[in-house]
């Protein structure tokens, strides 16, 4: 097995409040290729902060982050933009899509940023949207799609860029139960069939059991790390 992400003594302390907040406190973890991991924990436990750190969106105040063996916490900001574009797929809780572009244009957009060929963009965008069950919504704008459909487009976009792994921060938080399960079904399928490395955070008990590995955070530290078979 191949290690995709490795953190050692990862730490993020926010100093801007009255007392310093240890949002991420000494986390050392490894994520293997093809793993489907849920990061769980109550609100404020540091899930988002941790995902932002391994996603190269934020700088740690201590420790190291290795992506495929490359230390990213020392990278310059401009290098990180490009690194994210080529290596990491993102799905956020909301505001994932460009409202003025259709589903297909949204998926193509990331490949455009990667400077892929037009033909490849065209083909892959259609393919990815088929994978998430939206082949009939290629030309719909985000406001013509339900919340669940929008999140599926976001997943399609995240995968279209052929990332090393996909990070999803509370992707189901704004969804009803059915849509939430549906989204997890799709993520599970992509993980199994395409061997995509997926890490998602949630405090939603309903969807936790879909993951193959569940890491529980409490006050910025790992309190439990269990593999579910």
């Amino acid at each position: 097995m191949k290690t995709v992400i490795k953190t050692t003594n990862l730490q993020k302390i926010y100093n801007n409040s009255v007392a310093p907040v240890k949002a991420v406190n000494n986390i050392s973890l490894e994520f293997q290729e093809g793993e489907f991991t849920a990061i769980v924990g109550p609100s404020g436990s540091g899930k988002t902060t941790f995902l932002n750190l391994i996603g190269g969106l934020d700088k740690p105040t201590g420790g190291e982050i290795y992506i495929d063996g490359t230390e990213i916490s020392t990278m310059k900001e401009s290098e990180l933009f490009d690194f994210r574009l080529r290596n990491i797929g993102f799905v956020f809780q909301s505001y994932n899509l460009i409202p003025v572009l259709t589903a297909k244009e949204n998926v193509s957009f990331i490949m455009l940023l990667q400077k892929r060929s037009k033909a490849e963009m065209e083909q892959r965008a259609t393919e990815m949207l088929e994978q998430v069950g939206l082949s009939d919504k290629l030309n719909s704008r985000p406001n013509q799609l339900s919340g669940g459909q929008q999140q599926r487009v976001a997943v399609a976009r995240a995968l279209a860029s052929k990332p090393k792994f996909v990070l999803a921060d509370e992707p189901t938080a704004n969804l009803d139960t059915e849509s939430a399960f549906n989204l997890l079904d799709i993520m599970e399928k992509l993980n199994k069939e395409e061997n995509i490395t997926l890490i998602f955070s949630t405090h939603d008990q309903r969807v936790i059991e879909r993951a193959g590995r569940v890491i529980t955070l409490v006050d910025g530290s790992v309190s439990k790390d269990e593999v579910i078979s």
Partner: protein
Amino acid sequence: MKTLLIISWRNIWRNPQRSFVMIVAIMAGLWGGLMAASLAQGLMNQRFRTGVEQEYSHLQIHHPEFIKQDNAKYVIDKREELSNHLDNDELVAAWSGRTIVSGMMGTATLTSGVTIKGIDPEMEAQTTFLDKNIIDGSYLEESARNPVLIGRSLAEKTKTRPGSRIVLTFQDLEGELASASFRVSGVFQTANSYFDETNVFVLKQDIGQYLGKEMVVNEIAIVLNDLDQVSEFARTYASKYPELEIRTWSQLSPQLAFYNELGSTMFMIILMIILMALAFGLMNTMLMSVIERIRELGMLMSIGMSKRRVFVMILLETTFLTLTGAFGGMLVGYTTVHIFQNKGINLGNVGGDSLTDFGFEPIIYPELAPSYGLILPILVIITAFATSIYPALKAIRLKPAEAVRQE
């Protein structure tokens, strides 16, 4: 880049109301600016044209001493040779030799200081179109006995009409005071009422007779076929007739040269003020649109859209918004100017006689130099670029991690 263009264009229509208001504001601003500028330009051009056509012509030739002392005894030497030369010069459209004498015009009740100009009616008509400016009575005729043309404001002031007798008093070439009776044959009016009040025209031979010499030519006014050849023409004649003083319209009337510049300067000033006002409105609009999209911009930068691209996107949005308005404004502005270009806008109703007092015609024909059609969009684009810098900087200074967290 193409996708970025599409996104930017569509983005400005996400809040159609706000964009529409901004576009209409830009349109109105530019329309107003173009109208004001074209009126100013029209006014200045008219002042310039009437000044050159009716008063100064393109060039004038004098005896150097005449300019200093304003005495009719300083006549133009080599008159015969010069007139031959002018008659055969292809650059020359028309010219007129004049006797110039300072004197007084008197009626039974009133006297007024005037410049008496002795002219050849035919040649003067071709040079300054004086015959076209007769509003009452008739132009000078060789057959009449001592006819005189006086300006409208002088006629009103002295209460004279065609047929009235007046007395002109002046010094003859010997320095003796001479007086002669003239009969008003016509009243003229130019755009410059001051000119009308201070100039009277008589036949050259009539005034010559009282001065004591048949042909007294103190001034030659010349009109060329092409205004642009004035300086070259002046140089040639200056070297050929070093004993004469030859001056171009801009040397004769620095004021006219100034008006000529003023038109375009005023256009620039008006435009700058309008663009500056628009820039603030525009900046406000763009800032609002950036602030509303913090999460979306954070998302874009998170997935790897470079800051450069985000910057360009905001820049394009501002430019599209501005250009749409500017295009509309220019279309409406140029159309309006085109409509009134030949019809004119009568400001006489508003300003009364104050315009003519300053030598302006009451009806203004708005004019826009075609070059403005190029300068304007360039200035507008520069404004759009300058305006978008701050909102665009605001956008790229967002920290992706924080921006996506925004509630």
